[in-house]
């Protein structure tokens, strides 16, 4: 073989470099070779990504576009979590007891890029992080379109993906991946949690107008909510107003709703789209005559539109800060977050924090960064404490089994502080809200 190479006229320099590589390989420290003996062959960024004294996580979050506010929010949760992991904070230790200062003796570093909530951007940025930073895990998404794209990318690259915000059924359904894990609630669980509340509050046989953002999140949430209400409340969907992500003026959609005879508007729009559609529904006089429902809560919605517009609005959410009265870890989280950022956390930050904390738990539990072993640690399905009580991962689709929180907007006069926007009506246990693991066609894919 070397002779063939020589025959093809390879320069002496190339040959020398090759030789140096061989020699270099032989004198590498044993630590590098050891995993090979433990049946842990190199894959993705393993072991290269965890050989130094730090490990890096790549975050592609939207800092521009319709989801920018929520992207910044989840970034804050991530930064707080990284700080806590590296310092061995008490809260992190409650979730991940084996964390000391850092994970497996290594400090965690976060690298961040702006995805603009666009799948292509997110994938390209993570590819850059893999090449340049040898990241050992990826995160970030406020759009399920991004989450689904990163699911596929994670599976291909064999790098863990910690889903940030993603409400589509598909993320742990037909587009699920062995390398991806979701902490937050989603369309089906939102529908089954908020559905009974709506039927009880507004009665049977109501007419619902849906407002749906035109991508996987919007369509799956609308479908799940509509199915629940049709089947269990005898409601009718009188119209479904599908709008592109980033719509500014909702007048034409609201005009349709005004003429549809709806009793309730189920607004699935998210981020800035939700802010604008809620404001404009009020301008058009649709609300409060028609009741507004937000099946998938938006961080900072109430702050942006004002409490007068979220009064009496029902929403399903992952977390609201007044849960601190119910869960000790929630109390710790709210206090830590407020100390660092000066305001009460919203669910995007909580979700990001929990994802990192759970990751730290799983890696330190597995005792290695080797991805398949870490994945199997998640798949054990052990129960552990979180900011919303005891939770566990479902091995079959990598969805966290967790409660969904139903909140209702407070009237401005009932608010006890300037951030007291929502009243927690119910915390619905996760178990009964979820479909069978294979109902949405999840096939996880291989470990290696």
């Amino acid at each position, binding site marked *: 073989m070397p002779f063939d190479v020589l025959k093809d006229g390879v320069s002496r320099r190339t040959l020398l470099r090759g030789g140096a590589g061989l020699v270099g390989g032989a004198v590498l420290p044993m630590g590098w070779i050891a995993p090979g003996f433990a049946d842990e062959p190199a894959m993705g960024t393993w072991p290269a990504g965890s050989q130094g004294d730090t490990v890096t996580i790549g975050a592609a979050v939207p*800092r*521009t*576009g*319709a989801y*920018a*506010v929520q992207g*910044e929010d989840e970034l804050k949760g991530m930064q707080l979590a990284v700080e806590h992991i590296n310092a061995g904070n008490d809260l992190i230790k409650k979730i991940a007891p084996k964390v000391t200062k850092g994970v497996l003796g290594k400090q965690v570093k976060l690298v961040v890029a702006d995805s603009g909530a666009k799948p292509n951007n997110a994938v390209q940025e993570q590819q850059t992080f893999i090449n340049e930073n040898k990241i050992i895990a990826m995160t970030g998404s406020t759009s399920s379109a991004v989450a689904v794209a990163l699911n596929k990318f994670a599976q291909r690259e064999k790098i863990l993906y910690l889903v940030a915000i993603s409400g589509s059924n598909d993320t742990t359904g037909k587009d699920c991946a062995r390398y991806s894990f979701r902490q937050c609630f989603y369309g089906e669980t939102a529908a089954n949690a908020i559905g009974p509340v709506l039927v009880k509050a507004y009665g049977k046989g109501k007419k619902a107008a*849906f407002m749906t953002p*035109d991508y996987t999140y919007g369509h799956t949430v609308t*479908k799940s909510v*509509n*199915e629940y209400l*049709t089947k269990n409340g005898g409601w009718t*969907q*009188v*119209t*479904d*107003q*599908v*709008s*592109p992500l*980033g*719509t*500014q*003026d909702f*007048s*034409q*959609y609201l*005009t*349709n*709703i*005004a*003429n*549809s005879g709806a009793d309730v508007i189920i607004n699935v729009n998210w981020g*800035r789209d939700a*802010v*604008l559609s809620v*404001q*404009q529904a009020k*301008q*058009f*006089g649709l609300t409060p005559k028609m009741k507004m429902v937000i099946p998938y809560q938006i961080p*900072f919605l109430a*702050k*942006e539109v004002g409490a007068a517009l979220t009064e009496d609005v029902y929403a399903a959410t992952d977390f609201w800060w007044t849960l601190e009265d119910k869960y000790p870890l929630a109390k710790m989280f709210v206090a830590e977050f407020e100390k660092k950022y000066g305001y009460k956390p919203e669910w995007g930050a909580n979700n990001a924090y929990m994802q990192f904390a759970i990751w730290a738990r799983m890696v330190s539990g597995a005792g290695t960064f080797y991805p398949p072993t870490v994945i199997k640690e998640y798949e054990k399905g052990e129960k552990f404490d979180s900011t919303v009580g005891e939770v566990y991962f479902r091995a079959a689709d990598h969805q966290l089994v967790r409660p969904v929180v139903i909140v209702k907007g407070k009237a401005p006069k009932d608010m006890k502080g300037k951030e007291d926007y929502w009243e927690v009506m119910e915390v619905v246990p996760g178990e009964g809200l979820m479909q069978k693991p294979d109902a949405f066609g999840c096939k996880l894919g291989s470990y290696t």
Partner: protein
Amino acid sequence: MLGWGPPTFNADIYAGDAVVNWANFVSQFFNGLVLGALLALISSGLTIIYGTLGVLNLAHGAMFMLGGYAGWLAYSYSGSFIVAVIVGSLFVMLVGVLIERVVIRQFYGRPPEDQLLVTFGLGIVIVEAVRFWFGSLSKTVPPPSGLVGITPIGFMMYPTYRLALLGIIAVALIVLYVVLYRTRIGMIVRAGIEDSGMVDALGIDVYKVFMLVFGIGSMAAGFAGIVNAPVVSIAPDVGESILVQTFVVVVIGGVGSFPGAVLGGLIAGEIISITSMFNPGYSYVMLFVAMTLVLVLRPYGLLGAAGRE
């Protein structure tokens, strides 16, 4: 509507979505008029700049956004909507004049790609600077107190301010028309659109005209930005999607044509509104279909003329 059976025409795709009846048609037609008026105003700014300077200003959306923010700032200090509108428009005009003088002027002799890149870059700088100073959380400017609420207009209830907006924009367009068609400066500007070389040859300082046109064009966007702020609360990205739509309007109406921008704006507004009555998912698709048709059948746009740059 929800069953898993074979989809029929009336099932999955159409029945749940469409509210097709005469009342809704009239409502949507009217709403399209309001949407279209706003597009017309922003597009007229873009089209006179392109027509005169030959520069496609990709920072035009940022100007729209800037008008909103400048107005919002003025509003938070003065509490007056009128002050907000005046400050918003004048500030953007000033920014426009500065940009022309400092940046755009260096690019007249350079290839169009360079002009596109530099205005595109300017747009990013302006948007991100605003994001840096004011954050991403949206800001609201309430409508003037007399224009709050809803007005019944027979076939539907319509937000009072949006009704007023129709009038406000109509007045703005008339003012722009008078400036362009009834004043000496306007005549020079229009001459510049047809043949800026000839204007220069006649001994008129064409650069001064360019600066003025860029200022007026920017002001149209800035004015639209602040009068639209009570309708769509402002955020740094607010100009992004508007920019795309105004391009479509300019192409439909004819590049460099002020009446074309107005006509194109109204057509675009109606297409978006009426299509959404049948299926909102297609309203922007239809807009681009219309643009394609115009490009195929009348390459210079409905009211455009060959030879304009």
